[in-house]
């Protein structure tokens, strides 16, 4: 069966998706392919060409990739990105799940709690990021003033290589758990009540119910939410840029913020797209294995 005949047979269906396909091609695939091509050139603001100067950039093969991948700083920052992503998503998930379980029970004022817990998500990122930056201020910040009354500190929260990472992660955990909470709560509410009733009849305890009903049935939702969470956190630019600017001395930089400094400050498009392609490849291959690894254990029920 040739492709052509498939298309002919389902002409209407293809006609209906044609506009979407065209838009996707225009705004996703074309720039993506162009980006990949530019990553093999030395394009920057001086040779990209303008109304006044003809373009003069050249293909340089794998030079940009070799330059990025052979720098030890890239691998340091890749490690920081991994720590950043794993820690954040771990806390997003555990805090989000715990709160979702609490909110899933019948308790008084549930709607109010739910609303209050959404606040971190609802406040614009830059406002909360700047507030946290001030909370971590070594002289006038809440944390050091609190430590002082306990006779401790002061801690250079945002300027110490370890504490700075703790600080940005804490900020992002606070910002990110409501999303997990809402998604997991949705997942919990879609689990049929009959399951729990049936298991009670069979004499199941609470913990057993959680392990054999709640967790497995929550898995499809949890899997999608964590995958999204990992991708977002991996690329989370705002929080780090606004709280520490990647400092002290790049200790809190992740690939997204590092690439910004390296590439965008001077419109080095060749390098910028190289970083973009590398980040994209990391996330694509991760998603591929993540989905495959979890698929194997699906469909138990």
């Amino acid at each position, binding site marked *: 069966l040739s492709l052509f005949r498939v298309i002919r047979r389902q002409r209407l269906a293809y006609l209906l998706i044609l506009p979407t396909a065209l838009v996707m091609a225009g705004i996703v695939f074309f720039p993506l392919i162009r980006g990949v091509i530019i990553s093999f050139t030395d394009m920057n603001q001086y040779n990209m060409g303008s109304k006044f100067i003809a373009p003069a950039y050249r293909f340089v093969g794998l030079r940009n990739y070799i330059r990025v991948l052979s720098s030890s700083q890239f691998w340091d920052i890749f490690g920081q990105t991994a720590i950043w992503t794993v820690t954040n998503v771990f806390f997003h998930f555990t805090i989000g799940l715990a709160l979702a379980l609490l909110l899933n029970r019948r308790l008084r004022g549930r709607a109010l709690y739910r609303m209050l817990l959404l606040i971190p998500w609802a406040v614009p990122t830059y406002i909360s990021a700047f507030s946290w930056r001030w909370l971590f*201020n070594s002289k006038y910040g809440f944390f050091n003033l609190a430590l002082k009354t306990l006779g401790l500190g002061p801690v250079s929260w945002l300027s110490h290589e370890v504490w700075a990472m703790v600080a940005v992660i804490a900020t992002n955990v606070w910002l990110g758990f409501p999303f997990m909470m809402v998604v997991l709560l949705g997942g919990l509410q879609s689990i049929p009540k009959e399951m729990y009733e049936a298991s009670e009849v069979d004499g199941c305890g609470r913990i057993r119910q959680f392990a054999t009903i709640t967790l497995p049935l929550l898995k499809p939702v949890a899997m999608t939410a964590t995958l999204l969470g990992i991708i977002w956190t991996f690329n989370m630019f705002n929080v780090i840029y606004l709280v520490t600017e990647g*400092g002290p*001395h790049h200790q809190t930089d992740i690939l997204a913020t590092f690439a910004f400094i390296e590439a965008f400050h001077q419109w080095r498009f060749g390098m910028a797209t190289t970083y973009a392609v590398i980040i994209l490849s990391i996330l694509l291959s991760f998603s591929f294995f993540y989905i495959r690894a979890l698929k194997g254990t699906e469909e138990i029920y």
Partner: protein
Amino acid sequence: MNQEETVTLDGLIEKFMAENPEIEIQAQVVPFSDAQNKFKTVAQAGDAPDVFRAEIAWTPEFAELGFLTPLDEYVSSQDLQDYLPSALRYNQYKGRLWGIPQVTDCLALLYNKRMLRQAGAEPPVTMEQLIRVARKLTNPGEGQFGFFWRGDSYWLTPFIWAYGGSLIDEDDGQIHINDPGSVDALEFYIALRDEYGVVPPEVDFANDYENMLVGFKTGKYAMIFNGPWATADILSGEEFADPANLGVTRIPQGPAGYGSPVGGHNYVITSSCQDVLTAYKFIHFLNRAEHQALLATENNLLPTRRSAYDLPQVADNRIIQGFRYQLEVANNRPVIPEGGLLFVDFTPNLQAALNGKKTPQEALDATAQAWGQLLER
């Protein structure tokens, strides 16, 4: 450009249109942080505005990119004489003149007169005196320190020049940031904390600009470096309820002389401009001495014309005159297209040195290496 500057400028534009009814000016205010990229985007497509206010480091960059019109034949020789050389310098690139200086600035030594007087000290003139005076004013138990420095490399540059180092030689492209003089400067910077104990022991790079201002305004830090842009905020502090308590003078001299980085903004005319003569008439109008004086006194900016400093309202302004005294011995940053990006690589290395992760020599070698990559283009 902040809100008050915009108001002052809008007034000047109204005045210009009233004087020249045949010319219509449309002004657009773009937040400073977006201005550089936004301008590049429109200029690249050939849709740039006729006139633009460019930060000093952007001027050679835009000139290199072919976005600007040279103004050599428009600027009169009297004007060239009148402009402060350090401010004019930022418009000269590759042997041509690409703009006229709108405002200038530099870092100067700001001090709390009451605190110095009570300690029986005069403002320091040399780096040795800086240590001596700052020691007298330091009382760590009370959280009081004689001096305050930042983990931002711009604040280190006065020491670099004072100790005989420099950044980049723009003529031959040689990098001097890891020269012995520059290393001495960084060693001295760190010694101010570790050896002499006259700056606070704990660092907070993300908040140190705010902390410096709060500490200065509340009498915790007796001396700081800052520019004219900060004086309005400083005068709102409790220590400066009487503005006369704020002293502004030169940053102390090191073994190699004075040092302070000159900054500021220029008016430039873009290469898309169809009528350069009219555009120049407009920026020349904005830049008249009396208009510079207006911007200076209302917005704490430094005029770029010598004649503006002689106008009574500026001549009587003690703070502006203090900065002018510093400007006489201030240093130009390298006038190269990459000039604005030097601090991007410099600051993280300074922080590594302040945190003891790199020695001063290692930190400055790493900076030199990064600058080498930056310049190779």
